């Protein structure tokens, strides 16, 4: 497998749009060709070599290509956007929109990722070993069509709108989330091991949400339907006792959404 190693060298005073950095795009390109790829920074396009030193070259196909970013790039956006195969490893923190719209392949972010990671993702896998911010695996602003497939794993925390508008795929978060987790979802699975603040599953019409921690303010419009123990979704295990709810009945489209809330951490419910 061919490796392209990108080492950030600076000039990130304005954020950089790096949607060309995907295995699909780098496959078949030589070091020089990769250095000459153009990235938007503000109103101007600059060659990739203004921001990164490049070594290695693309493989014969996207599957054969691994892109390794050696360092933190919190101000570089859209790495791995719309990628369909291959691998991207960011050995540091990633900027906004990492893996947004990806349909296949694998992205590993060893540090944190900024907002919009895995936005409207269709397939593949995105693993963020640190934490991320808002709109993880969510639909674009104004849209109700979110993630449709693939898997996102976050070891740390996420903030608002996790999985908004989701209709397929899986999101697993090891830490906590805040507001609007799973808003308007109609399919798929969201598992939060930690706490959620409020409005979990608001306007959901399908899909499944599991909250292993405590919900500060529970969403009205849900009805408890029973208690289940030791949940298992494919290879995702959620040990313990869970209260099962159906909803969201607050909207005209009567929901078939399912929400599991940890019994132990939500005694008042």
């Amino acid at each position: 497998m061919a490796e392209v190693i990108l080492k950030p060298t600076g000039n990130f005073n304005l954020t950089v749009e790096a949607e060309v950095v995907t295995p699909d795009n780098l496959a078949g390109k030589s070091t020089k060709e990769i250095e000459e790829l153009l990235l938007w920074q503000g109103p101007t396009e600059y060659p990739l070599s203004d921001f990164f030193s490049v070594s290695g070259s693309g493989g014969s196909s996207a599957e054969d290509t691994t892109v390794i970013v050696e360092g933190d790039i919190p101000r570089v956006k859209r790495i791995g956007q719309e990628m369909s195969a291959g691998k991207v490893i960011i050995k540091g923190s990633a900027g906004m929109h990492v893996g947004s719209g990806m349909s296949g392949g694998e992205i590993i972010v060893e540090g944190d990722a900024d907002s919009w990671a895995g936005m409207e993702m269709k397939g593949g896998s995105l693993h963020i070993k640190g934490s991320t911010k808002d709109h993880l695996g969510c639909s674009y602003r104004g849209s109700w069509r979110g993630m449709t497939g693939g898997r996102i794993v976050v070891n740390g925390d996420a903030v608002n709108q996790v999985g908004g508008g989701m209709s397929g795929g899986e999101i697993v978060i090891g830490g906590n989330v805040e507001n609007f987790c799973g808003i308007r979802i109609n399919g798929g699975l969201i598992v939060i091991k930690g706490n959620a603040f409020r409005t979990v599953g608001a306007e959901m019409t399908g899909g499944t949400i599991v909250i292993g921690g405590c919900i500060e303010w529970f969403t009205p419009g849900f009805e408890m339907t029973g208690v289940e123990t030791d949940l298992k979704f494919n290879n995702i295990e959620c040990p313990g006792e869970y209260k099962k709810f159906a909803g969201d009945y607050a909207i005209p489209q009567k929901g078939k959404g399912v929400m599991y809330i940890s019994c132990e951490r939500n005694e008042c419910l």
Partner: protein
Amino acid sequence: MPGTIAIRNGYVYDPLNEINGESMDIFIKDGKVVTELSGADMKDVKEIDAKGKTVMPGGVDSHSHVAGAKVNTGRMMRPEDHYKHYQKRTPLTHSGCGYTVPSVYLGGYEYSKMGYTTVFEAAVPPMEARHTHEEMRSTPMIDMGGYLVLGNNWFLMRYFKEGDIEKAAAYISWMMRTHKTYGIKCVNPAGVENWGWGENVGALDQANIHFEVTPEDIIKSLAEMNEKLGIPMPLHLHANNLGHPGCWEITRDSLKIPKKVKAKPNADVEWAETKKNAKRHESVYLTHCQFNAFGGTSWRDFESGVKGITDYVNSSDHVIMDSGCVPFGDATVMTGDGPAIHDLYVLTGHKWSNTDVECECGSGVLPFEYLKSNPVHSVQWAMGLESLLYVKDAWKSIMTTDSPNGGPFTKYPEIIAWLMSNKARQDTFDECHKWAGDRSDLAAETREMSLNEIAMVTRANPARAIGMAYRKGTLGVGADGDVAIYNIDPGKLEVNDYESIVRGFENAAYTIKAGEVVSRMGEIVAVPEKNTFYSDIAVDADEEKRMLDDVKKWFKYYTLGFNNYPTPEKYLANPTPIQVNAEK
């Protein structure tokens, strides 16, 4: 020489001159069609070889929502409509974005790429006329005008109730001039006023709240006023109960109301040479027939009611209509019919915008997606095509999508393909919900429109119906030099290969506006001057003064001052008033 051009050997379709695919030359001098060019003109004229291509007058859209407050609301509330559909700027053109509700620049370019040169904005609320004109002024490539929404206007409803016809006439003529608009649009008459109180009207003889006028009163009075004033276009009607199962009956009954009203358009204009009478004889224009033709009694027994309307249209001479086709995919529904959009909101749960335009009208906006898998949407697709195919005489119908309500105007090439190719329709039946075939009769319809009929429903007839055929929709001598040349060889056209029809109409080989090539194969190559048309109706000065006293008295109900109400001419690109002579 700019504005002078010779188009050689194309297959020309000019239905108003009964030219049906003859191979001939078209000459344009100083922006107007001429019989021939002199030797001196020919020296440095631009010549286009249109051999093996289809030549038509520039496209005319007589009903499209492209500018104004609710269009802009559609843009603002739909960022998701923009981010995947955008165009970068070029040295000649602006950047732009938006699929169902494109930005003004992009909208102009996309119309031009398809060979359209004239577009009329379907609804201008009087209070939003300035906004609408600002957007029309910034829409490049196309000549424009707008229809003034008057179907629920407080002043008119009061005058109709009191039977004060003279003042009503004076009011309409003053409003047209004040807001620089072209004709009368009537949306859900009496119903939108009721919507201000959370209600609607359900029957033509149901009087509305406070004003106590019925839809029938309003349709009849507006149609009579329209002809009394000599307005170029007929009353533009969006009937009551739109979008409700069973609404086709009220639509047909609405069309009966102005049956006895005789068309008397009376504008001081120079008419281009045409073999057929290019003047309208209709007293009512039913817009987006499909949305007004729902059958059944509920969504469970929903079916097409188009036949009930087209039968009536076939048997009468005072009605013209456009289709409001549904080509599937993304749309944004936007109309002055506030209650209809509220019903869609309840149905879909989507984000929804509603506006009450004070003493004048209302509006609603909502994103919508037509799915092949959805039973009702599939029937709507069939109904839009039925509205065109069941009207036997193509001079009685016009092709639209009520853009962006049924779908964006950029889908016109697909509609043309469905109209021209039965195979295209049958292939779509195979892909969509079976209701499309079960709840409509389209599957049994074998009619395939000819290129000549397509030229009728996309340019000649819209221009004729709205009184613009004195310069648009024809290539007769004296007409505007607006031409669309398509890469379609009528001799080799195989309608079963309908993809080639879509490709042919998608990007005109040449779009020519006023004798200048403005776009070529989907690329904008020149940004021409544009005109904005409005009706300047002369009425009795004393009557106008008496009417204005009323208006000023009631202006306390408006949130803006009387002096800020009119739209000055500086808001228009090349204001082109059309002198209209009211009956004395």
